[in-house]
């Protein structure tokens, strides 16, 4: 403990489970917020600081960036799912008026339909399209395996030349033998195979970049989840110093995990711009967005679960096949939500390569897939032993937050009115279901934030990472306003320019928990400087000064208004940098969530209407309730889409995605929306000085599972495959009828 370190006592957890901890924290760190903290700005419902700019169109997204003399870049793409490239010739394309440059993309083989083979830049979009049409590519078409069933078939065409099989994976999982033996002995064994579909990210704003050179300096406007990542990747790709690159992402129209990387198109935009001596914009169209920017892998999950007659979980085995397209990483995550004995889980993961665009991280990667399977087998097991599915979860879940959420959620949804599975009759049948989630989202270094206090009393907070629409900018402003005792309107927040201090990639729900503590520390340090000026001016001890309600004063009221205090600043501004330190002790190592669904099934048409979702979510201390609710709503909506509608459809004949649009790729609309009731838990999770945890991803995990349980309850049959469209519901109903 250095001289400046100090000891603080905190209360972590929540009302039903308080934990007192003692911490040693360094001098520059404010005392962390905990369960006892009283807030005036934090936890309120604040419109996002850029709301007005967004709704008036003043906010400029990458698509809106139009520079003088700017060219339009785009790609000629292969119309075959697998082919050898004999030649790519852009000579004729270059003769098209307006076409300025062409860069063939060197490769000898194409492995999915829509893979780019040549990049072009032209003065107008029409000229670009005309140029693309003139690119002469000669292919030798090869057999393909665009769908998981095709890739798993005997003698399937090989997706990767250097592999013996399209399947690769863990082989015999750990504990396989113990689990198999235990299953033999179990009182009851339930088996099922759950299937999930490929879902695309379907961001409203497609992937896009604008590249502009000034001498050897490059400015990139790009729609990204990682401004700093783009900077280093483009520096690598172009072999130029990172120091020469500025990446700007002022506003962003969705990423959901698909925009972590610079993408091939960003470096190409920069190359084209260099070659043409003019700025170049590349903005993918909807078809390109669906087929070539990532997706959530599908899965086939074969499960066996042993349970005792009194409902305790025994051995669990699951074999998961999933396709990452030509990429890597297609695991369905089956996390330890419920209390399985650790050595009693055997999880085998097999990746199935297909001739399709590579997967990308997508909102809680692997979790919605895993959740659908796990909650399916949980519901089936509960049914098999004649136990209420909620009760079954309660007795197998020791997480205190979720236990609270189970009982709160049950009350809100009216669980006691839930009838036995399949006991409803008539055309419209109602049912209820439940699903759970776990997520990390604790954040950590590296994140730095600058806070500036100006002589006129205004305050600025800056970080160079991006606000991907989740409201990170507003989170910073709220934290700074709280720390300085100001109303939110006094604080201007800036994000999305790599000239500002470093910040995280927006992934794993870590942006807020990474930058908020740095922002708070920056405000704390800046505020401390201001307090010192006031203390000197008034002749009081700086330690006795509080920053509250727009004043800097002692408890007795001796002090100055914030504006007055700022006039004491000599040098024009106070500027302080806050740095995110690594996590200290947390209450739990992640966040907990539970969702309940009520559905109504039209048994004549097989249509499912989600009547209500009750989403109970923990995200540490809630910084901005309005945005946190908005994150929950968004997660539930995406989860509902996953449950009932969204599905990438690949043609078995020629391997194209057939619904690479917003017509047959079905994203729910207004009329498909249920009532969403959002219950947030202010849990002092500790870990950082704001106690905030991420909320972006966990909220989309259990929605489909809860809906599946509700359908099961309503019709007395399980739909084992997502999305649970009318055809599948009708099939499940028919099967139940014929089984009677």
């Amino acid at each position, binding site marked *: 403990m250095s001289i400046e370190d100090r000891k603080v006592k905190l209360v972590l957890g929540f009302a039903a489970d308080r934990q007192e901890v003692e911490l040693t924290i360094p001098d520059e760190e404010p005392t962390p917020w905990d369960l006892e903290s009283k807030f005036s700005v934090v936890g309120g419902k604040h419109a996002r600081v850029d709301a007005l700019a967004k709704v008036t169109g003043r906010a400029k997204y990458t698509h809106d960036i139009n520079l003088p003399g700017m060219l339009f870049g785009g790609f000629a793409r292969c119309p075959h799912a697998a082919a050898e490239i004999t030649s790519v010739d852009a000579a004729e394309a270059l003769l098209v008026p307006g076409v300025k440059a062409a860069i063939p993309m060197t490769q000898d083989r194409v492995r999915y339909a829509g893979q780019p083979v040549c990049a072009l830049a032209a003065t107008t979009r029409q000229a670009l399209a005309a140029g693309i049409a003139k690119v002469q590519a000669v292919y030798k078409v090869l057999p393909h395996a665009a769908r998981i069933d095709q890739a798993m078939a005997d003698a399937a065409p090989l997706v990767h030349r250097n592999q013996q099989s399209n399947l690769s994976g863990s082989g015999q999982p750990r504990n396989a033998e113990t689990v198999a033996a235990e299953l033999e002995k179990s009182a009851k064994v339930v088996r099922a195979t759950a299937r999930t579909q490929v879902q695309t990210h379907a961001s409203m704003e497609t992937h896009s970049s604008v590249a502009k050179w000034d001498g050897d300096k490059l400015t990139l406007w790009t729609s990204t989840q990682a401004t700093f990542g783009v900077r280093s990747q483009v520096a690598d790709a172009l072999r130029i110093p990172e120091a020469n690159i500025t990446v700007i992402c002022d506003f962003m129209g969705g990423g959901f995990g698909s925009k972590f990387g610079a993408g091939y198109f960003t470096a190409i935009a920069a190359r084209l711009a260099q070659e043409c001596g003019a700025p170049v914009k590349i903005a993918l169209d909807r078809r390109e967005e669906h087929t070539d920017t990532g997706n959530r892998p599908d899965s086939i999950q074969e499960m066996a679960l042993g349970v005792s007659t009194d409902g305790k979980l025994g051995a669990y085995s699951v074999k998961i096949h999933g396709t990452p397209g030509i990429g890597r990483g297609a695991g369905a995550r089956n996390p330890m939500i419920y209390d399985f004995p650790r050595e009693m889980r055997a999880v085998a993961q097999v990746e199935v390569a297909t001739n399709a665009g590579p997967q990308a991280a997508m909102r809680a990667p692997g979790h919605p897939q895993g959740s659908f399977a796990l909650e399916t087998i949980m519901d089936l097991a509960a049914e098999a032993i004649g136990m209420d599915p909620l009760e079954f979860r309660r007795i197998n879940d020791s997480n205190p937050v979720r236990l609270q959420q189970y009982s709160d959620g049950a009350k809100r949804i009216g669980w006691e009115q839930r009838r036995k599975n399949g006991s409803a009759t008539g055309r419209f049948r109602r049912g209820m279901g439940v699903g759970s989630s776990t997520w990390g989202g604790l954040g950590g270094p590296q994140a730095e934030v600058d806070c500036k206090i100006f002589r006129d009393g205004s305050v600025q907070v800056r970080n160079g990472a991006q606000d991907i629409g989740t409201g990170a900018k507003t989170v910073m402003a709220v934290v700074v306003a709280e720390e300085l005792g100001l109303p939110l309107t006094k604080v201007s927040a800036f994000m999305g320019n790599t000239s500002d201090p470093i910040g995280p990639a927006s992934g794993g729900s870590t942006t807020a928990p990474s930058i908020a503590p740095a922002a708070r520390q920056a405000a704390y340090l800046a505020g401390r400087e201001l307090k010192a000026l006031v203390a000197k001016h008034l002749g009081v001890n700086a330690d006795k000064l509080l920053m509250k309600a727009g004043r800097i004063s002692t408890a007795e009221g001796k002090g100055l208004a914030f504006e007055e205090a700022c006039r004491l600043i000599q040098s024009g501004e106070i500027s302080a940098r806050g740095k995110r330190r690594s996590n200290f002790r947390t209450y739990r190592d992640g966040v907990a969530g539970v969702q309940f669904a009520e559905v109504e099934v039209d048994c*004549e*048409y097989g249509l499912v209407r989600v009547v209500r979702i009750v989403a109970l979510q923990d995200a540490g201390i809630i910084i901005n309730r309005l945005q946190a609710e908005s994150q929950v709503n968004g997660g539930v909506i995406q989860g509902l889409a996953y449950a009932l509608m969204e599905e990438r459809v690949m043609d078995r004949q020629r391997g194209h995605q057939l619904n690479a649009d917003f017509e047959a790729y079905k994203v*729910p609309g207004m009329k498909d929306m249920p009532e969403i009731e959002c219950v947030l838990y202010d849990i002092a999770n500790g870990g950082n000085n704001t106690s905030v945890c991420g909320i972006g991803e966990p909220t989309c995990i259990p929605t489909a599972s809860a809906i599946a349980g509700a359908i099961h309850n309503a019709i007395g049959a399980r739909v084992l495959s997502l999305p649970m469209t009318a055809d599948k519901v009708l099939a499940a109903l028919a099967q139940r009828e014929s089984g009677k």
Partner: protein
Amino acid sequence: MKNFDWITPATPEAAVQAAAQAGRAFLGGGTDLLPLMKSGLREPTGVVQLKGLTGMERLELTADGITIGASITLAALCTDTLVQRSLPAVFDAARHAATPLVRNRATVGGNLCQRPRCWYFRHPDYACSKKGGDTCYAIEGENKFHAIFDNTTCNIVHPSNLGPAFWAHDAVVVVLGPKGERRIPVAEFWVRPEEDMRTEVALEPGELITSVSCKPLSGRSGSAFEEVNEKQSYDWGLVACAARLTLDGDKASDVRIVIGAVAPVPLRREAAEAVLNGKVPNEAAAWAAADAAIAGATPLRDNAYKVTMLRACVKNAILTAAARARKS
């Protein structure tokens, strides 16, 4: 999209004259033509705008029945009280189509002439039979949304909601062409793939739909249009049915049952009508008629569910029409 001439005639006659030149296309609301042009499926050399042409925006009771100008929008149709009262199936059909945004632009003429939604047809990289190739990819391919009747050569389903509803009201399509006016009974308006693969409607090149005339309800009668969608916003129908009947005492007479979204063109189901004619249109009779309506279905690998769905859809359309007739 290729450059094109922009032509703004003032009268239907001038529009027809302008369209006489090969390669020109009429533009109603553009909700289908523009997407087709953007994806390169249509490349007209000239676009003839139909907005404001004399007589094409009327909606009135005439000696012919209710005359609906071809430029009337779906939004206008589904807010009109005359339509609601006298052509309830048309009212329902317009109201269920697309989204408010689309309905504000989409016109009656364009709705009848819109091209199929088959995803192979709409995909620029598939040269299927309908586009001059020699394969219907839907037969072996992904055919969840395709036809369950008359599906041997081309498996499209006709996407128009108004088609079946107009037919249930014995509509006549009034057409103006270089050779003058023609009146086409709606039953003869549709073209099956076997007759001509390249089109779905019986218009000669350059012919303009000026209006559609429908037979209004009279006496104790009712009509209804029922449609099933996977999504309740922004989606095309999986199956649809328009039904009309008149009550003779408590028995149904003069029944029309027309199904949509299940075959390359709307289909009138006379066998189902015969089952219902002379019966009390109750639940049992409606199911019996529905059974007749689905008879002969030949579903593909992935769309057998549509048969089950259609059966219920026909039943429900009949019951709604009957309930309305009882109330009239």
